[in-house]
């Protein structure tokens, strides 16, 4: 099981934060372009899912899976978007994303008066806390094969 990378977007699609752990293949474009592309895709999926759903959607888009990886998506009521890519065996990522939001983002970004909201996160403390949190979670195990 392994974690590839995380994106945090705000309500209007600004990339607030990006970090990667075990990412073997790069997209060959800058981080900003890649983030825009990711956000655009997520935006489309979200509206697609909402339109096409035969019943009323409660939570809407939750995740998708390819043959190689899974993308997990959490959107808060305030419009923040947490996107985590993992391998296909990982479980309980939704709770993990909730915890990251509650225990890392709210604690070290929202409660830090020097972090401007809606701007990329500069706080070193947030960075280290998030890194430690991901690394100690059960999902994070580097492939030894």
């Amino acid at each position: 099981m392994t974690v590839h990378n995380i994106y945090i977007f705000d309500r209007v699609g600004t990339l607030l934060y990006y970090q990667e752990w075990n990412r073997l293949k790069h997209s060959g474009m800058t981080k900003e372009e890649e983030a825009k592309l990711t956000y655009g895709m997520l935006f489309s999926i979200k509206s697609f899912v909402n339109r096409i759903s035969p019943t009323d959607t409660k939570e809407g888009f939750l995740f998708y899976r390819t043959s190689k990886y899974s993308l997990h998506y959490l959107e808060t009521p305030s419009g923040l978007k947490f996107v985590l890519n993992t391998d296909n065996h990982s479980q309980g990522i939704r709770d993990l994303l909730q915890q990251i939001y509650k225990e890392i983002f709210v604690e070290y970004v929202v409660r830090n008066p020097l972090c401007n909201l809606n701007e990329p996160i500069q706080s070193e403390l947030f960075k280290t806390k998030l890194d430690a949190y991901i690394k100690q979670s059960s999902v994070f195990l580097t492939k030894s094969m």
Partner: protein
Amino acid sequence: MSDDILFELLHSEIISYTLQNADEKDKEKKDEDLSNLEYIGFSTGYRIIERLTKEMARFKEELDTMKFICTDFWSAVYKKQIDNLRTNHQGVYVLQDNSFRFLSRMSSGKQYLELAPQYVTFTCGVIRGSLANLNIQCLVTAEVQSLPSVKFHIQVQRS
């Protein structure tokens, strides 16, 4: 829980508001004027002490008062006790908080060090106000070397 965050957010808004006002008054003055902030702290401390000590006996000595500040007072306002109290027995006290409430979520190291004074000034005033109402006139300054730890220096003025 929810009142904790209210106090914290209000505190940071007061700081940005007073600094903004100071900027507009003296545009040529480069130094940030924190005295308003200190005075807000002073009156807050002066009043809060009435409430906190209403059921307590009088303090016998200055040191007792300082101990009260470090334990009861600090846990009421900052949700923890002071980690270290030192004195030279000649009116100088150093109160050290290793994880100061307003700084603990900002950084653990040198980041934002130059902005730290803004976030400890109010507390300097609170300490000064509290002690003033307990009949100790003093000067309170703060020293931040590495966040989130703060040292408050209290210098009692003897007449």
